[in-house]
């Protein structure tokens, strides 16, 4: 058991001389509206000072506490933003429906994560649950029995602080960690893994979700309330065929997705990645029959898990149609160009 008594840490270039790294991050990413609120910076921050203030990522007491190590800049996927788009590389495109778990569609996110836990590949998966008022809460899932809490599956359409918990998970884990997240979160994890071996070794499975956009909790809730939807009564939310469907205890409310654009966060409007191309496996509802999840296997670890699921017969596999995704991929890319055009104007 040896170790170094002397070592060197590469520091990134400072975007703003004589200012903190975080100031540079703020100026270049957050204030420009590029920030996707993936909170990768909060994950790596050694003093745990970065958090969300008024729907914006911030480090309020940075003058006192910031160590100015630059880690936030090193891991920020939007700092040196190279937008991803398209379908990306994949090993397999399929559709599946879990026999064990019922999710919003095929329950495949849960299935993949639980199977990975059962295989011993990972010992925990980071999920997003919610409280009674649909506030997102990060949940470290260790075991299928914890799913009984009932609020883990299902789309929440609000930003969650998954990555803020990632470091804790990585330090606590014995085997490995699985993460579920939107494309921006996936990019953040990849950036973390690129920069720090700790994450490289221990984040074993990254499940990406198909994502058009995500909303700030408060804005979404006030929007929904305007539509006559009370969060306490809400059972699930879904977007199908350009319509937002909110199922409540006493009925359904539907409206066009377009209407949501008025509260679309700027960080989402610059995102072109619909399918989480950097993930190990992407899952979404588009591209398969209703009741099935589309599963895009990209990485080796995910391949193993899918093989395991097949072997055990935990899921029913169907046909996926990559063509169905094109519309949304293009929609997202198109939005980006509109947005950048707007900016130029």
């Amino acid at each position, binding site marked *: 058991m040896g170790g170094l008594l002397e070592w060197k840490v590469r520091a990134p270039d400072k975007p703003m001389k004589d200012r903190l790294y975080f100031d540079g991050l703020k100026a270049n990413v957050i204030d420009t509206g590029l920030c996707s609120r993936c909170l990768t910076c909060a994950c790596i921050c050694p003093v745990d000072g970065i958090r969300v203030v008024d729907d914006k990522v911030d480090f309020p007491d940075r003058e006192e506490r910031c160590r100015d190590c630059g880690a936030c800049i090193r891991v920020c996927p939007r700092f040196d933003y190279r937008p991803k788009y398209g379908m990306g590389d994949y090993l397999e495109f399929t559709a599946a429906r879990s026999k064990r778990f019922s999710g919003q569609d095929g329950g495949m996110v849960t299935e993949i994560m639980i199977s990975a836990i059962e295989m011993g590949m990972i010992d925990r998966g980071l999920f997003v649950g919610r409280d009674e008022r649909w506030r997102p809460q990060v949940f470290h899932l260790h075991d299928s029995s914890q799913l009984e809490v009932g609020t883990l599956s299902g789309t929440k359409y609000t930003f969650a602080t998954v990555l803020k918990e990632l470091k804790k998970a990585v330090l*606590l884990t014995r085997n490995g960690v699985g993460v579920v997240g939107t494309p921006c979160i996936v990019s953040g994890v990849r950036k973390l893994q690129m920069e720090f071996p700790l994450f490289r070794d221990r984040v074993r499975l990254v499940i990406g979700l198909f994502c058009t956009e995500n909303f700030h909790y408060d804005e979404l809730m006030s929007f929904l309330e305007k539509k006559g939807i009370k969060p306490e009564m809400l059972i699930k939310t879904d977007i199908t065929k350009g319509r937002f469907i909110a199922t409540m205890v006493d009925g359904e409310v539907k409206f066009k997705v377009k209407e949501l654009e008025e509260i679309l966060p700027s960080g989402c409007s610059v995102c072109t990645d619909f399918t989480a191309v950097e993930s190990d496996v992407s899952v979404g509802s588009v591209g398969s029959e209703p009741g099935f999840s589309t599963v895009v296997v990209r990485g080796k670890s995910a391949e193993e898990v899918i093989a395991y699921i097949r072997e055990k017969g935990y899921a029913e596999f169907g046909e996926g149609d990559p063509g169905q995704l094109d519309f949304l991929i293009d929609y997202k890319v198109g939005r980006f160009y509109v947005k950048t055009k707007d900016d130029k104007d």
Partner: protein
Amino acid sequence: MNDEKNRNIDILRTGPFSWLKRWSARWSLWPCHFVTSCCGVELAHASGCGYDMERLGTLTMGISRQTNTIIVEGTITRKMARALRIVWEQMPDPKFVNVIGACGQRGGIFWNSYHITHPHTIVPVDFFVPGCPVTPEALIRGVRALQKKIEGEDRDTIRFKKANLQFKERKKNMPPTSPKLLAPTPLIRNDIPGGVGWEDGDELVEMVRSRLKGLTASITVTDERRITIRTREDEIKEIAKRLSEIGFDHVKSVNLVDVPHEKKLILEYVISGYSKSLMPILITLTADIRGKYDLPGLSDIWQSADYTERELQDLFGVRFEGNSWNEIFMLAPDTPQSPLRKSFRLEEEEYILKDGVPLTPHIDPPSDLNAPLPSGVLEEVEEMGEYLVLVGPHHTGSGHMRWIMRLDGDIITEIIPDPGYVHRSMEKIAESRLYIQNIPLFERLCIVDPVNMNLGYVRAIERALKVDVPERAAYIRTMMAELSRIGCFIYDAGIFSLFMGHSTGFMYLWAIREMLLETFLRITGSRCSPSFILPGGVRRDVGDDLLDLIGNLTTAILPRFKKFEDIFVRNPVLLARVKGVGVLSRDEAVRYGIVGPFLRASGVEYDIRKIEPYDAYDSLGWEMITADDGDSLVRFLVRLEEMRESLGIVSQCVDVLKGMRKGDVISEEILGDYQEGSRDIRGSLYRVYGNLVLPRGEWTVLTEAARGTLLFSIMSDGESNVPYRVRVITPSWMNLRGLIEAARGERMADFWAIYGSFGYFPPEADR
């Protein structure tokens, strides 16, 4: 408060004959018999023959009216605070208060408990004596300080000298963060397969499975002789019924675990049977309860669950169906609601001294002095033409408890226990402390039997970690546990003889206890709270000179004990008082869940040291003691005989240890990187144990404490370095029910014969 304090001393300082007043008050400081917590044991030692406070004119006597001093012995819980204020108000002026023990000052080890108060906010306090528990010498020092104060010299008895710290360099440092590690949304499970080879287990599981056919029940063997049956909440009762039919005749523990992030409560009944084949087997019957607080209760199937269910009703704010008790049982009326739920948080520790101010949570003293009676009792008593006597908590023969006695003439028709006066919320506190920090905590369950309490907790940790104890350590532990058992019996017998009005018996035993405590003192450095047993071994080796001392002790106490027997045990008056009193038949004893020697006195051959031997017990020669009568007399005699066996065990251990080569006393696995601590942990305690993490699961361990089965059940999430939940069921708690039942129908005076024979120790029961 200060006015009240000064008023009392001013009465003595002013007026005619003030010198005479001061002289007489100084030499006649009588503390009233108000036992508030464990330090009371050392108060007994201070007035016992080892120190004899009476030399200074300080005679512990009677009740508030006739005395002029209160010695607050340790913890004042919210419930006891009322009694304390009442006692103080009842006492004629001029009166004085000394607080001994850390609990009564800044709370000591219970400083962030939800159920304690600060005595100085309730009564004016003259002197504080530090210690936990204080030594009798310190207690007498407090009395001396009080005497000096009355004389006119009011000062601390210690003066610190301020030294200058020499500084070399200056550098601003960042303080470290808390050492505690809490896993987020942990997985809490009690049915993790243990993967152990247990031959008879499969057979038993099959048998149980066939009995439970048609019901939802997943049966898991979690460890050797530990089975978990998980079921649905609506079927738990049916399963319980069927299990009770195949011989599972009593409940060892009822437990609830709050898992707020999964929005559920885990309900657990730990059951076992007293038939030969089922004896060492524990079945945990468990069900998850979601979204409601009305739980299925099993007290109609197993009466032994009754009081424990009542306790959980208080602690978790739930209701057990079928339990007749609807009101508050353990807690004070103004204790925080359902404190054991995770949403109730205790004050966090701080590790940096800020502004030189001691860290104490603000605790309001109770607003009223009302200690409510169970509703309807008064009316019912009147209707039946009975009358009610409230014994305690301030009463010479009550202990730290209130007994609501319903009497018909001289006959006790019913006793309603009112426990919780020493409920220091150990289970809650344990959830917020490192595993190692809980060792001194649980020791204070029963300060007269500290080693066994310590051992019970440590063994649960060891069972979880699957570490073995080095042979030498095993013998040391056995030896210490038996010494502690002897000490506890001597204590109980002393209190018993006092209850019978025989102070000589008490004093004779106190001389013996003084010898035992001297031995503990030399081995561990502390009289009553050794904290000597650590996971994987003991704190340090016991040298040959100490072994000689212990060897001598085993024979030296006999002549003195013989005198005790002559004057008390064989005294015909005692025989008349206890023979045939408080009889519990075998069936009753099992039904009411009695444990330990008291169960053996009713004819059940059950001793955990025999049926599930731990440490060195199965390599030593000793016998289990039983009796058939089940009355107060044999309950006492069984323990007396057990003391002889214990002496035998101790001397065998001494012989083995003397013949054994000196070696490690802590297991290598535990020490890990710090093998230098293998013979003496000094220097490495925190480094070795600070970050102890238990594997996920629930670990239930039975230990034979002096008064019977001690159950520790530790729930670990596998990632935090603090336990998720610790459940302690102490023997005294289980024996409470039996005590109450045994007293029914006897004469009032018999209550003390029964109470004494059960060696009931409220702090142990209240936890």
